[in-house]
C-alpha cells in the first residue's frame, strides 16, 4: 500500500491552501514538504492533524525562538518555504485558535497581506527594471540577434509581470484588504 503521495498544486490564496492541506489531512495524508508547486504527503490516520499557515515577519530574535516557543505549546513545526511557515497540531488537542478571536485573525490576515504586498512590490521593481533599463539598453545596442532578443525579452517580462499582477495578485490583495476591513468592523 502506498504510504506517501506527491501532489502538484499552486496557490496564491493562503486560505485555500490551508483548506486544501486540512482536507488532505482529513483523508489521511499529512503534508510535510513543498517547494511551492510540489506538495509531499505521508500517510497518517484520517483527521489526525490540523494545519495552519503562518508568515515569518523577520523577527529580531530570529525564527528559532518563535519555533521553540510554539513547539513548547503543542504546535509542531512542519516546514518553511520562503516566508511561509506550516504548522500542524494533533486534532485531539483542539483548534489552533478560538473561532471568535477576531484580534488573532486580524493579525494573521495582516501578515498575509504584507506577504503578498512584498511580492507585489518585488515584481513591480523587476518590471520597472526591464522597462526602464533593459528595453532602452537593447535599443542603444548595435542591431544584432542579442539586442533584438533583449528587446523582446524586456517587453515580454514587463507585460508578463503586469498581467500576472493584474490577474492574480491584485484580486488576492483586494480580498485580504476586504477581510481586514470586515474584521476591524467586528472590533469597533
Amino acid at each position: 500500500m502506498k504510504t506517501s503521495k506527491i501532489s502538484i498544486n499552486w496557490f496564491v490564496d493562503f486560505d485555500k491552501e490551508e483548506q486544501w492541506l486540512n482536507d488532505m489531512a482529513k483523508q489521511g495524508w499529512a503534508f510535510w514538504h513543498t517547494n511551492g508547486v510540489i506538495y509531499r504527503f505521508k500517510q497518517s490516520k484520517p483527521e489526525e492533524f490540523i494545519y495552519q499557515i503562518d508568515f515569518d515577519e523577520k523577527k529580531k530574535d530570529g525564527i528559532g525562538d518563535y519555533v521553540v516557543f510554539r513547539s513548547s505549546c503543542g504546535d509542531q513545526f512542519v516546514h518553511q518555504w520562503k516566508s511561509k511557515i506550516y504548522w500542524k497540531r494533533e486534532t485531539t488537542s483542539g483548534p489552533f485558535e478560538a473561532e471568535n478571536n477576531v484580534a488573532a485573525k486580524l493579525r494573521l490576515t495582516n501578515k498575509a497581506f504584507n506577504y503578498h504586498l512584498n511580492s507585489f512590490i518585488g515584481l513591480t521593481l523587476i518590471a520597472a527594471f526591464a522597462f526602464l533599463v533593459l528595453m532602452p539598453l537593447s535599443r542603444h545596442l548595435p542591431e544584432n540577434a542579442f539586442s533584438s532578443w533583449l528587446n523582446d525579452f524586456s517587453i515580454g517580462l514587463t507585460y508578463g509581470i503586469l498581467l500576472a499582477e493584474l490577474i492574480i495578485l491584485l484580486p488576492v490583495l483586494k480580498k485580504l484588504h476586504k477581510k481586514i476591513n470586515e474584521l476591524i468592523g467586528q472590533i469597533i
Partner: protein
Amino acid sequence: MKNTTAALTEAIYYILLALQEPLHGYGIMQKTSTMSNGRLILSAGTLYGAISNLLEKGWILPCGESPDTDGRRKMYQITEKGQEVLLAELERLEELVENGRKNIKNKQYENK
C-alpha cells in the same frame, strides 16, 4: 498619547492575570483557558506576538526558565508597571459593569 489608558484586549487582560505568578507560554495558555471556562483559546502564534509586545512595553519580564521540563521554556512574570495597567483596567471594567447595572432597562434584571 498614554497607551496605559486604552482598553486592554481580552487576551492581554487574561495574560496579565495569568502572570500574577511566574509561568511559561504553555502555562499561560492553559490558565487563560481555565479562567475563561474554555471560551478564550489563545494560539501559540498569537501568544508569542502578545508576549513580545508586553515585554517591549515593560509590562512583563522574563524570569528564568522552567525547571520541570527540558529547561527551554522561558518563564515570565508581571512587572509593577504591568500591575498598574491591570488595576486601571479593572477599575475601567468595574465602571462598565456599574453603568450597565444602573442604566440597563430590563425587567428581569431589575427584579433581581
